[in-house]
């Protein structure tokens, strides 16, 4: 009844049996135990289940698991390298850009992606790129500050 798919999740290859009607979000959380991927609406409105799917940010509640066989997935668990936080992660902590923390994985991941693509993102660009994720605690000003502050590290990276 199920079929086996292969995914690379945060750098490690995973094989998992899924049913055709299973949502990627649920497979990541329930079967692969990638619990940083949260959910709050299950229909593409809150953005908390955002992941990088083959380098593109998508909301995993609107993706079937069977369609992504062979794909590469990056979540916030995969950002830290060799025990070192990514600059955006450090910046989120320093600027207090988190309260309850439930939306934090999605915001961190989306901010990281934004800065990798556009290290000198303007405030408007930051706002536009994060408009699909909801933070009910209202930590938006701090998130913007954290991104602006972290951007210097990404500018350096890009030059290298």
């Amino acid at each position, binding site marked *: 009844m199920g079929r086996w798919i292969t995914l690379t999740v945060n750098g490690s290859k995973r094989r998992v049996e899924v049913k055709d009607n299973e949502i990627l979000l649920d497979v990541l*959380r*329930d079967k692969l135990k990638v*619990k*940083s*991927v*949260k*959910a*709050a*609406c*299950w*229909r593409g*409105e*809150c953005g*908390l289940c955002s992941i990088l799917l083959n380098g593109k940010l998508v909301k995993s509640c609107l993706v079937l698991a069977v369609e992504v066989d062979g794909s590469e997935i990056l*979540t*916030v*668990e995969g*950002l*830290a390298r060799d025990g070192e*936080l990514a600059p955006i*992660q450090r910046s*989120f*902590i*320093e*600027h*207090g850009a*988190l*309260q*309850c*923390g*439930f*939306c*934090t*994985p999605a915001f*961190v991941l989306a901010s990281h992606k934004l800065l990798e693509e556009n290290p000198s993102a303007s405030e408007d660009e*930051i*706002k*536009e790129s*994060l*408009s699909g*994720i*909801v*933070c*009910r*605690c*209202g*930590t*938006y*000003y*701090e*998130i*913007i500050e954290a991104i602006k502050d972290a951007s210097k590290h990404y500018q350096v990276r890009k030059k290298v």
Partner: protein
Amino acid sequence: MSFKYVGKPIPPQDGFLKVTGTATYTFDLELPGMLYAKLVTSTVPHARIKKIDVSRALGVPGVVRVVTGKEYPYRVGMYAGDRDLLAIDKVNWVGHPVAAVIAETLEAAEKAIDLVDVEYEELPAIFDPLEALKPDALLIHEKMEEYRHSPAFKPIPGTNIANKFTLVRGDVEKGFRESDVVLEEEFHISHVSHCYMEVQNVIAHYHLDGTVEIWTSWQNVAPVRQIMALSLGIPHNKIIVRIPYVGGGFGGKAGLGWEALVAILSKAAGHRPVKLVLSRKEQFSTAAVREGFHAFAKAGFKKDGTFNAYSVRFILDAGAYADYTVNVGRAVGYSADGCYEIPNINVESLTVYTNKIPTTALRGFGYPESHWVLEQIIDRAAKKLGIDPSEIRRKNLVKPGHSHTCTGERLREDAGDPQKVLKTLVDEIGWGKPSENPPEPWKVRAKGLSLFVKGPAQPPNAAASAILKFNEDASIDLLIATGNFGQGTVTALMQIVAEEFGLPLEKVRVDYVRDTHKSAYTWQTVGSRGLFTDGIAILKAIEDAKNQIFTVASEVLRCPKDQLELVDGEVRVKGKPWEKIPLQDIVMGYTYPNGNSIGGPVIGRGVFMSTHTTYLDPDTGQGNPTIFHTFGGTAVELELDLLTGEINILKAVEVLDLGKVINPLLVKQQTHGGLIMGTSISLYEEIKFDERGWVVNPNFTSYYLVRIKDLPREVVARYIETPQLDGPYGARGIGELTMIGVAPAIANAIYNSIGVKLDRLPMNPEYVWRALREQRPDLVEEAWKRFSKYEKIVEVTI
């Protein structure tokens, strides 16, 4: 005095786990052998249940049990024990849980709920609390007299009134007669949802030996246990409630939750653990939300602006179950006077049942409602009297040390400095200085003010405690129960501990799981009380631990205790810093070189008990309801589009007298968060119902939350530090405060500038557009002319 940690912008101590995605929420937890529950909910607003047929549902592979209300006819609740676990014989709103399916997978449970056949015999439904108050109205709760309720409340059996609060002070009729100007106004608020991101979810494991283990996304452990013990009759020590990280609460995870139900489901399913996760739709239709509200106010002022008499009637639309809303009704009642001295005041606050979604507390409960009314009344009076809104406020502000609140409580001298709050607010917003003209001549810019005061709404005996335990290396485990759902309180409390012992912050640890079995007791983390009550308990625990440490050190150093001090993790003799013992040599007991030992492991304990609060008199509402008051104010400068009705906040200023800012980074974060939530609720949020009582916008598409692109352009947060002498380092609470002033400040800005009254929330574009057309057709006409003849093409960004 200079501190190492207190008053410093320390980053949130749970930040690392949160940015790496490793912070654990109940949502992330699974237990071995766990089953999934899904609720069958009512599709009709009011009906007798004639028959429930579960046979088809039981046929779904993977379904273990289907439970209905008749099997477990318990009544549960925190303040009002008016709620059933599952509808017993009657459903009272669309979304009322009627049955629960328990299955091996969520998918099987979801399939099965469609196959539970419920036969209803419909009854007439009441959707408006004003209808519910009519003498011949149908009773939604026919046996109200049988419900358990806290002594602070007054339900009226034989009516739909879940709580009646009355407050009388002075002679209001005489007050009106002696007033020069009397206004009568009406205000309304729509239902809103808390929209915390982590939905309500619970795991319960009812063991065969009668022990119940609970994991839940809730604000506090103790009330969960208390509700379960009282309503299910399980002894307290057989209930273990654990709360890991919580994805937001805002008061919506403080009252009655699903724990008792899920515990029963676990028992019914053969004592296997069961998890219930609400969907967002169920959050909008089945979980409790903030109540709807009507207010009818009459206010009398003297020519010089003196607020002389105030009579107000609050009608709360509590929905099918009132539980926590009875306390909201009480709080809205006793906070009716805000931060003003009103000699003659009369308040009636009715919490009324209707056939709508049940309701509960939301950030500031009662206070945003009372201030929505009062702060607009002030501006309307100011206009009538020709007095500036800041001046009329200045004139009527309470004077700590002299004034009495409407409950007759004499305000302490150290309660705060409302005049300074007002002055700072007025300065920061540039009150009196006209706004710049907007680039588009069909828009207007305006400024508005609002002041507020708030104390924790709690029973008089709401206690807290703390246990502080040293480890071998003189690191500290702090066992507290204060909920951790984003407020930053725990970081502030850790700062206090590190400060007091002169230890690095890293040496203080608060486990992320709150546990009735392992954490100290605190009544609840609500009402902005955590830092204050638990902070005091912690300071006492520190004192207790220090005393133990000094007792030993005094013997070792041969020096009286009062000559010792704790500096940088060492006990030193004052003035002789070379005579010292490192803490780690004492905290497990001191061992002399020969092996003789004295003292022992140091465990500090401390409690907080409010000794000066009282119940309020049932007839007059007089007494001392709160443990402290925090004064604050919000001012906004906004731009109103006269053609679309859109309101755009250009600048928001918030001033709070916090006594002492323990952590400026996190206090600012709370202030910003409250301003944003306040903006969202003021301008957009509203649960809408259709004529059958169905919620028509149970999602984030048509129930709009402010997003990152909708922020006020500029925010300013200023803090005044008038120490609260009994507060930890002089501090007062903040969490809820930050939201209260936003809505009235917006409405006041518009009223002040163009005289348009906005009486209901939310002030969304269509509502504002209607109000403009009705109240100022001339302005709209003028704006239209300017717009249609506008000479410049305006770049509108899409």
